[in-house]
């Protein structure tokens, strides 16, 4: 029989192996975040060309380090913790075959070590190949092997997730439909399975090629298969983030989604159509026809965008319902004004929601338009977009969740209320300033992934680069506060035993009645108006370019 404790706050059963797996994944996630974060600061201070901190070779090296540790390691380690949590504790169930969980973690750790060893110490051409590693750039074999081992480990966690859910049903710790959070994580896990299979298909041949066993890799085919991994990997983050938003709206204000049916259907739309978004990276590649591009880049007539628009309504609506049930029922926006802004989990939820929508989501839909992509492909607007999605969106949402993970799973009291409260604001606002600057520079043609652009003449370039740098410094401050606060809390924080409550209130009684959500509908239409304005503006910019067909 496995060791089990009952959580004094939520009343859920916490089984030892599940808890351990969550802990080790969470710790590796935070370490990766720290490495990636230091890289981020150095890169931003290099792109701010008034400072131009790093020499060219170190700039490209840190670009690879930053990309791998943030986009792959921080995200996936955290998501593996999420997979375990959603399939065991939430369902009152046990971790099936925990030894395979530890094996999966070991593979991921080994992959992490190999990749980081190479990107930090390898010679330039074998290590600085970026997260994308486009063939025929040729990295050290250990780089590819590390990538593969990490992916296999993550794949095992996905399989264990499904086995856990199956087992929970079989052992009847749980019956009926799974909770919405687990449903969303299941969507992420399904997306993860086909993502990781693409990862293996892309990297195994390239690994053999780096060992001279395979003679040649077709560079265009590599790009196609790689993006079957690279883009859906971010859609795992998307589905996981939306699930965390639902969870946090419940934990922080007792929110419930206005319609379980609609929210679940939206997750299903993600599973069915979001993989088509891989085409976003191939819109100005040779070898693909217009109808293929339009069909895929629009996620099959925007059905996955429809899913995001549904969540864009359902998440704030969930918060509004929770708040109105607590009595903040006056007028359109009292529920929002009186929200628990001094609870970092809530602040993280709301800021990440707003930045994801207005900066990340909007710019993503626009740069995914087949024709407009000609004006944005490989410009600084691309990282501008995905810092709005994965940094301000997913990372901040995960940080918000950590404010509960530490007291509930690690059972330590946060050392400082002050630093916890300011952290999400610093991180979110910093990323927003940085991403807006990058989007603007990119729209004028400033390329991404390049050490020097001083010879390019672009209006307000110096000013925008300064904002990029300052935004990055603010965001880094938020990031380093988060990391240090966690580390110091785990080492020196007061142990939580028995009944003492986490310092940031966690609501375990949800709203009892579904109220109307007039405030949310107003906010949602403001967002839609913004999307349409940006859409038209970008078509206007395109219409002034040289004619090409």
């Amino acid at each position, binding site marked *: 029989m496995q060791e089990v404790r009952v959580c004094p706050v939520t009343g859920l059963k916490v089984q030892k192996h599940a808890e351990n797996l969550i802990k080790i994944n969470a710790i590796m996630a935070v370490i990766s975040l720290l490495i990636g974060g230091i890289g981020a600061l150095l890169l931003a201070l290099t792109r701010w060309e008034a400072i131009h901190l790093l020499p060219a070779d170190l700039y490209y090296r840190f670009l690879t380090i930053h990309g791998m540790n943030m986009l792959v390691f921080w995200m996936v380690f955290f998501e593996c913790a999420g997979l375990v949590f959603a399939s065991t504790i939430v369902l009152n169930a046990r971790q099936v075959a925990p030894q395979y969980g530890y094996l999966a973690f070991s593979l991921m750790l080994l992959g992490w070590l190999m990749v980081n060893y190479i990107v930090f110490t390898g010679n330039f051409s074998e290590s600085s190949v970026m997260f994308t590693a486009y063939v025929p750039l040729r990295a050290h074999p250990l780089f590819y092997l590390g990538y593969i081992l990490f992916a296999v480990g993550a794949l095992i966690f996905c399989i264990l997730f499904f086995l856990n859910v199956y087992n929970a049903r079989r052992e009847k710790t749980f019956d009926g439909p799974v909770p919405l959070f687990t449903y969303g994580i299941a969507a992420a896990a399904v997306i993860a399975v086909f993502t990781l299979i693409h990862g293996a298909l892309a990297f195994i041949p390239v690994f053999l090629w780096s060992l001279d066993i395979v003679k040649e890799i077709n560079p265009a085919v590599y790009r196609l298969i790689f993006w079957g991994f690279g883009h859906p990997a971010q859609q795992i983050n998307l589905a996981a983030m939306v699930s965390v938003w639902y969870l946090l709206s419940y934990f922080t204000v007792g929110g419930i989604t206005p319609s379980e049916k609609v929210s679940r259907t939206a997750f299903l739309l993600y599973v069915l159509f979001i993989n088509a978004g891989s085409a976003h990276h191939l819109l100005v590649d040779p070898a693909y026809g217009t109808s293929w591009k339009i069909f895929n880049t629009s996620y099959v007539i925007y059905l996955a965008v429809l899913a995001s628009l549904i969540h864009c309504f359902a998440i704030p609506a969930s918060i509004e319902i929770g708040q109105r049930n607590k009595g903040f029922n006056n007028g359109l926006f009292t529920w929002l004004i009186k929200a628990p802004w001094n609870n970092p989990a809530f602040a993280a939820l709301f800021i990440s929601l707003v930045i994801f929508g207005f900066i990340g989501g909007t710019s993503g839909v626009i740069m995914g338009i087949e024709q407009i992509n000609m004006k944005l492909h*490989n*410009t600084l607007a691309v990282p501008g977009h995905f810092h709005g999605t994965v940094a301000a969106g997913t990372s901040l949402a995960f940080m918000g969740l950590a404010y509960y993970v530490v007291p509930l799973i690690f059972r330590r009291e946060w050392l400082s209320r002050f630093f916890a409260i300011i952290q999400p604001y610093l991180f979110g606002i910093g990323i927003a300033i940085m991403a807006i600057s990058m989007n603007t520079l990119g*729209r*004028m043609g400033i390329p991404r*992934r390049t*050490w*020097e652009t001083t010879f390019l003449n672009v209006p307000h370039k110096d000013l925008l680069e300064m904002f990029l740098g300052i935004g990055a410094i603010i965001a880094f401050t938020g990031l380093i506060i988060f990391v240090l606060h966690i580390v110091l809390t785990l080492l020196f924080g007061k142990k939580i035993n028995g009944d003492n409550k986490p310092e940031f209130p966690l609501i375990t009684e949800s709203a009892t009645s579904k109220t109307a959500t007039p405030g949310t509908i107003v906010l949602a239409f403001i967002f839609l108006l913004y999307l349409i304005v940006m859409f038209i503006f970008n078509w206007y910019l395109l219409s002034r370019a040289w004619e090409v067909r």
Partner: protein
Amino acid sequence: MAIAKPSENYWEEKVETSEKVWISVSILACLFMFSVMVVWAIVGRQNPPQEAYRIKTSEFQKRVEAFINKYKIGEENGIPIVEAPSKVDLYMMGRMFQWTPILVLKKGETYRIRLSSIDVNHGFSILPVNINFQAVPQYEYVLTIKPTQSGEFLIVCNEFCGLGHHKMVGKIIVK
């Protein structure tokens, strides 16, 4: 309630009016955005080219050299300057870390430019027009392009290609 199971009949529960309105408007917005893309593909003047061929990198290099020999009018820092009539196909070759040749074009004329790379991926970015394409080795991408401004334009590589990536700057002159 994101961590509790939903009510047994959650699939039969009615969707509230404001959410129904939102979903309907969202569907319309999605159809609108999709239609604009399709209509522009038919009548718009800026569309990604879809003409491309497979070609060996050595063969591509040979054709580029023949093209340069035939139409060369000068040289700048060792890079040939080439002016060819719009009725023939022009070439643009990316390699670590230069674009060859420098093309001289006439404003308002339509050209076919065969773009490729002979080593790794490069990004073909005409600035400050800001129009971007991917140069993939072993694939020839035919850009049918009409400059609508005159002046000197830079071609910046915007796909990471190695240590000298940021030095890879070429030129197009439009008369």
